């Protein structure tokens, strides 16, 4: 199975929301990482056929433009904020989704039961949609996307609003699907990506600037991540100048994790990078990139 995006462009007035995207995605979990406004949602909507734009999208031999019915039967989509009829119960909503996906009644019933059990929503089946918490709504959103056992699963910010337990359930579910579907999920919660993504696409200003697996991506920031503990006053001065990933106050001192091309302080220790560091490296301008000379 392969999802191919060729020369995808989307312009709003004179500004590119998505620019020259050429990607081929195979079975597995692909994470789309980027800041707000980087074009993640626009790209996902284009893959789903919701937004018009330039370029070609194919799933195996199925063309999105010319065979949308066929394409949509392989597609599961969970929008960032999905709409629902508030007076429907969870059961009614899922049944409705099965109907509009043209799934047979017998199949729908079995599939709903299985997914509801997997995502621990059995006791909420008769609750009105409008009474569900944010986390529960997300779970219902994930279920509706999985109803037709999609080969392409597009999840826009699926873990936003989930508590840690719900996130673990979600990760396990995605991991179980990764061998049978092409899963593209967008997030800026980097810890989700570290655990489940096979490869990561980094988007900035509409373009995919990097596409590789976790270990390869981290090589970019290898030798650029430092940890340092300084007295509070001196620490605050450093924080104003450098890209600080994490900081922690300890009595009279501050412990910091800094991303910098050069050693930020004589006492700084080089450490192994993680995705947070990479994210900050690409998405935050360094306030003042002068080297600390002691």
């Amino acid at each position, binding site marked *: 199975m392969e999802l191919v995006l060729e020369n995808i462009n989307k312009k709003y007035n004179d500004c590119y929301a998505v620019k020259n995207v050429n990607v081929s995605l195979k079975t597995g979990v692909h994470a789309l990482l980027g800041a707000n406004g980087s074009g993640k949602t626009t790209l996902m909507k284009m893959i789903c056929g*919701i937004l018009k734009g330039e370029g070609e999208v194919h799933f195996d031999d199925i063309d999105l433009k010319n065979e949308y019915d066929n394409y949509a039967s392989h597609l599961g*989509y969970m929008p960032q904020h999905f709409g629902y*009829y508030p007076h429907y119960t969870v059961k009614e909503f899922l049944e*409705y989704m099965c109907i509009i996906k*043209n*799934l047979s*009644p017998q199949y729908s019933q079995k599939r709903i039961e299985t997914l509801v059990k997997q995502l621990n929503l059995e006791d909420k089946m008769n609750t009105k949609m409008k009474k569900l918490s944010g986390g529960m709504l997300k779970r219902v959103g994930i279920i509706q996307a999985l109803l*037709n*056992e999609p080969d392409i699963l597009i999840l826009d910010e699926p873990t936003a609003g989930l508590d840690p337990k719900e996130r673990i359930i979600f990760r396990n579910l995605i991991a179980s699907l990764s061998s049978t579907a092409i899963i593209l999920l967008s997030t800026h919660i980097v810890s989700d990506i570290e655990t489940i993504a096979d490869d990561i696409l980094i988007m900035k200003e509409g373009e995919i600037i990097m596409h590789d697996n976790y270990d390869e991506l981290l090589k970019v920031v290898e030798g650029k991540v430092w940890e340092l503990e300084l007295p509070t006053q001196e620490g605050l001065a450093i924080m104003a100048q450098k890209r600080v990933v994490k900081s922690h106050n300890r009595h009279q001192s501050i412990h910091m994790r800094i991303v910098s091309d050069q050693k930020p302080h004589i006492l700084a220790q080089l450490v192994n990078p993680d995705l947070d560091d990479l994210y900050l490296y690409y998405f935050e301008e360094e306030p003042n990139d002068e080297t600390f000379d002691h």
Partner: protein
Amino acid sequence: MVNIDLKALDETKKACHQELHLIQEKYNARYSQLIWRYMVKEYCKLFIFAFMSFGAVLIMSIMFQQMTFVCIPLYFVIFGLLALLENMKDDLYHTKELMVTSYMNEGRSFLYRTIVIIVFQMIMIGMTFLVLPLNSKEFIYLLLLTVFPLFIAEMIALSCIQLIRNLGGIAVIYMVVYGIVIVCIHYFHLEVIISMKECLWVVGGSFILYIVSMILLYKQRKESTVLWN
């Protein structure tokens, strides 16, 4: 001589049958089944409401005969408004993204909703004229006050949905068009000057116009879902 592995061929055949069986189990094979399930899910409450209020309107019309030409048109005005609301549900509840990416898509959902509503409206209109004791003049007058403006107003309002995605705006357009048609009927005394045959032609013509415009709108919506550029 080509050496065909018959065992492999048989296994392929079995695998194909198995796949076909899985697909048949997974999807609705008949459109009628899909439309029926969709209709029940979407319109069950609307139909119950329509039947109950229809009963109340009929009782009022029979008890107070002078109210007939107010109650019945008012019933169809409200019914038409609810039908418009049903057609705008996806915009109202932001369910469009889910609808577009499903088999039903924007085009089919519009078509099925329109078919269901028009069939139901025809049933209700038929029942009205069957149940109420009307002479031919009253029949023409009621037909001109209900069916004719209903089709015209709904047709124009539904055509405007693509441009004005606001329920209030669409409701105003619907009411204004309905009102204009009623005023015109009274201004030109159509109920007096046209015969039964002419009246049926007018109503039939407006119905055909409604159907044609709905088919065009369906095609437009379906294409807007499928085509990219």
